[in-house]
């Protein structure tokens, strides 16, 4: 078997690696898109920052 620089297996491996790369990239784009969509829909955007804040504390029933 002649030793050649480019074997068919290299193309196949490149295809596999490119496929995984594109899938990961698509995943990142999707998570970004989901974040934007959730924020636009007005989902909970505030998180605890270790200090009480009126918008984060439960309502006290008025007498």
């Amino acid at each position, binding site marked *: *078997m002649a030793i050649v620089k480019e074997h068919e297996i290299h193309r*196949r*491996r490149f295809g*596999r690696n490119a*496929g995984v790369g594109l899938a990961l990239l698509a995943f990142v784009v*999707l998570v970004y898109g*989901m974040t934007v*969509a*959730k924020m636009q*829909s007005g989902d909970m955007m505030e998180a605890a920052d270790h200090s009480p804040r009126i918008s984060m504390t439960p309502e006290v029933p008025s007498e």
Partner: protein
Amino acid sequence: MSDASLNTTSYENEAGFGDFFALLKPRVMSLVVFTAFVGLLVAPVPVHPIIGFAAILFIAIGGGASGALNMWWEADVDALMKRTRKRPIPAGKVTAGEAKAFGLTLAVMAVVMLGLAANFVAAGLLAFTIFFYVVVYTMGLKRRTPQNIVIGGAAGAFPPMIGWAVATGGISIESVLMFSIIFMWTPPHFWSLALFMNDDYTKAGIPMLPVTHGRRVTRAHILIYTLLLAPVAVGAGFTSIGGPVYLTASVLLNAWFITGAVKIWRRSEEAAVADKYAAERKFFRISLLYLFLHFGALLAEGVLRNFGMEGW
């Protein structure tokens, strides 16, 4: 160094990207995507398009993951059947261990991501679907009982229910009816296939109904399940997801399907052998169309509703 040799066999069979994709059973995935999409769209709660797209994608990946796990477990019988011999594991492209790791990783990822993208009712249903298909059907029922596809059919019936749960966050009569249509449709669909693919199943030792009880009994079972399916399918037309379009389509399709099932039931084995199971093959094709058009009609009702044309 006086000698050099290359071990060519080790990588000649190395998997490409397509081989891993084939593990996901893309054809089954297309049915999952379509029915889940219909379930999501006919629900009364609107979903942001990106969230809807992501949810359908994760449902499809979850379905694909269970396909990969099924191929891992079934590699030995897949090698025996003409229909499945070229799958990546029996073809030597992917090892059983790789398929298992691939399937498990995707399954966990799909469930967690669906929970984050939509809600944990939908994610729980997806997790149960994967568990049901892999553990209950593939590992438990498939090689033990001729009722394998009756019970196992539930796994394929969950996607529209998951789609509905993505939108509504719950389960209701409409989503249960969509589940029931696919659940009741699965036995006649697979048994008609088993009637003309019997040799494959016999060789692999899978106890399909024609193998264990003969073709006569199978023909009767196809008719019974087709008759039981009709009221479920037509009944969905009277709920909030139905309407005149769906009801008309459903009545016509069920009449067509029952006619086909009666024809199969009345046929003798000699007649079937003589024309190489032409009626059974036709019934199998009709069954695919039956399901596609039922969900297509539900989709049409959903779209009409969005344009202000309420079904009922």
